[in-house]
């Protein structure tokens, strides 16, 4: 299956195309406005700042103990009968899952929603091995039918409106063209139900992996997560190594933050806690449960005290919902598995700063993302840090560090530095600039395609203050 191609290298072109597409812009604006309102309304009965502080501390504590907690998670999962596998990168994780499928002679996989599986391109890998992978989250299902990738980490098909969804379903599954959402949902449900019953393997993600109990928590609304993890004879859970939390009691605050921040819900329709395969005498549940823990650059992020904060993320998507850039260009424009603010601080670690060089700069540093982040990730600070890595001398541990460093820009900043550290020269040049302002260009690059050029003042503030002082000394007001 060919998937519609977006790449981070083509960010500018993709942004240009998205900005020129009124349908895309309207779909995102409407959806993001709705999500922001829902989040705001659902937190009214909570002391949000206290809860965010708690969430941040739970995540920081888990990260501080990460190596130990991962070992504890492994031990407790194994004790519970869940087999644990470690994957250094996405490719290794794909191989592990494929081999588990092949060992059972599996031909079809049903998937619950998992961004890590997107990150490692699991579907393509399985298909190449002759194993069909079908998405069962409704949004993921639609995106897969339409041969696209998710445009949002929580709402994968948020870029599509009702008419577009109707058209896709009509085209690919033969349903009637309609605006009746219930009809379309029921049709998808019926199509998927068949597949749940016949799938050989279920693959899901994990929201929280509890170290002290060896429990995998899965948050969802459609019941597809429960079907995926209980109906097929084998369940493979796949997740990033940062998703571990220490205690079971750490889960409720994070869950409260996650559902409220993501979709403005008090609780989700389903909250699954998976702690073992089917036990003797039980009537349902998979015979085998596996957990694949994926590193894929995360332990490299972990080495850096500042960048480490990236790993606090609980994947709620609130940063994208509130991002003025994401709202305008949509998720596909980023060309990366994770779009929006979290994508801009996470993807450079996975793809390198060369491929993602336009992402950290694609922010006005307005701070809306950091303001809503349920675990208080200082996203704007991390964007600045990555900008610094990109233009630095290449000694940082982010892959591709130094890739944007060029002599012209360095020289420009050095000149600026010289001027701004030589006050007399600064005053002299602002005075000259004021005198020569008539020569200033009325067009300055792309700025003036949309705005008038800023006008240099005839007299600088330094000079105005001087005159003001003189006037005061003479007893008058200036």
């Amino acid at each position, binding site marked *: 299956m060919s998937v519609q191609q977006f790449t981070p290298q083509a960010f*500018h072109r993709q*942004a*240009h195309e998205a*900005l020129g597409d009124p349908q895309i812009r309207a779909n995102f604006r409407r959806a993001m406005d709705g999500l922001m309102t829902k989040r705001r309304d659902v937190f009214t009965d909570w002391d949000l*700042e206290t809860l965010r502080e708690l969430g941040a501390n739970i995540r920081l504590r888990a990260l501080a103990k990460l190596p130990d907690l991962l070992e504890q998670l492994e031990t407790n999962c194994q004790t519970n009968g869940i087999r644990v596998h470690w994957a250094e990168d996405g490719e290794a994780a794909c191989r592990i899952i494929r081999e588990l499928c092949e060992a059972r002679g599996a031909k079809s996989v049903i998937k619950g929603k998992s961004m890590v599986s997107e990150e490692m391109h699991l579907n393509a890998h399985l298909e190449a091995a002759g194993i069909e992978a079908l998405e069962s989250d409704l949004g993921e299902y639609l995106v897969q039918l339409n041969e696209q990738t998710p445009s949002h980490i929580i709402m994968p098909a948020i870029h599509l409106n009702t008419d577009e969804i109707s058209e896709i379903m009509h085209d690919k599954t033969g349903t009637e063209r309609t605006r009746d959402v219930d009809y379309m949902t029921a049709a998808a449900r019926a199509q998927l139900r068949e597949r749940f019953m016949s799938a050989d393997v279920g693959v899901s993600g994990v929201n929280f992996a509890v170290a002290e109990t060896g429990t995998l928590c899965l948050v969802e609304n459609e019941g597809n997560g429960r079907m995926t993890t209980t109906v097929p004879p084998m369940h493979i859970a796949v997740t990033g190594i940062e998703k571990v939390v220490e205690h079971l009691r750490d889960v409720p605050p994070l869950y409260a933050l996650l559902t409220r921040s993501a979709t403005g819900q008090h609780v989700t329709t389903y909250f699954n806690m998976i702690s073992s395969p089917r036990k003797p005498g039980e009537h349902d549940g998979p015979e085998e449960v596996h957990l694949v823990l994926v590193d894929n650059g995360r332990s490299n992020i972990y080495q850096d005290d500042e960048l480490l904060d990236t790993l606090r993320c609980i994947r709620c998507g609130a940063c994208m919902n509130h991002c*003025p*850039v994401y709202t*305008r*260009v949509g998720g596909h424009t980023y060309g990366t598995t994770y779009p929006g603010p979290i994508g801009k601080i996470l993807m450079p670690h996975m793809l390198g700063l060369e491929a993602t060089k*336009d992402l950290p*700069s*694609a*922010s*006005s*540093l*307005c*701070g*809306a993302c950091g*303001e809503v982040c349920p675990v208080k990730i200082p996203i704007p*600070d991390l964007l*600045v840090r*990555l*900008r*610094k890595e*990109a*233009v*630095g001398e290449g000694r940082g541990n982010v892959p591709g560090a130094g890739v944007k460093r060029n002599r012209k820009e*360095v020289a420009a*900043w*050095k000149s*600026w*530095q010289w001027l*701004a*550290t030589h*006050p007399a020269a*600064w*005053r002299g040049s*602002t005075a000259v*600039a004021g005198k020569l302002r008539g020569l200033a260009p009325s067009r300055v*690059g*792309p*700025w*003036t*395609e*949309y*705005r*008038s*050029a*800023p*006008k*240099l*003042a005839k*007299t*600088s*503030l*330094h000079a*105005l*203050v001087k005159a*003001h002082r003189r006037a005061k000394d003479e007893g008058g007001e*200036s």
Partner: protein
Amino acid sequence: MTPVKLYPAKPDKVYVFGTCLIDLFYPEAGLDAIRLLEREGIEVIFPDDQTCCGQPAYTSGYHDEARAVAEAQLSLFPEPWPIIVPSGSCGGMMRTHYPQLFAGTPREAEAREVASRIYELTEFLVHVCHVRLEDKGRTEKVAMHTSCSARREMGLAETGPALLAQLGGVELVEQARAAECCGFGGTFAVRHPEVSAAMVEDKTLAIEAAGAEHFVTSDCGCLMNIGGRFEHQKKSLGGEHIASYLWRRTS
């Protein structure tokens, strides 16, 4: 969110850090800020050797260059007087990022001390001066755009509107999505001009739709962006820095 700040009593003297955008493009706004402070009976010291807070280099990732420029500003405020900055963006840089920028350097303690004396102009007028304004201007509908730095980095969403609310002739109208960024973002507007343009387009439309006849902002970056967009479209709706607006209507 900035933690609750304990504000001092009104001092006899303050420093003003005018910012480079004001110095070059909007000097009147800087002078009006000084006039507003002087009218409160405060002596204003304007260190002549000030240039730029260093923010453009800082947000672009050139931290050595930013530190060198910031370091040149640190020595300008030797006395323990408050430092008033008529910009949330430069104020946020000096209050929040100076301590980060100098962490682990010999001047860290000094940077922290200077940071602790930074006040954004409207914050200082409201919380320290407890200013009382008497409006002499005509009746008009005004929209306020609080910069993202003032709103989020410094936690000052309320001080600008609070000052405008004291002006009897001003009807403060709220534009849709008032908290959303105007799209300036310093080098962002240059590196991602189309996205920035889409943002300022929406901001100007929202200000117009709110019925505003005029807009004010506490940051010259936003002013250059939003005002530049209105001017480019030859709209009569203009804007100015809040310092100039307050001075103009009350002097």
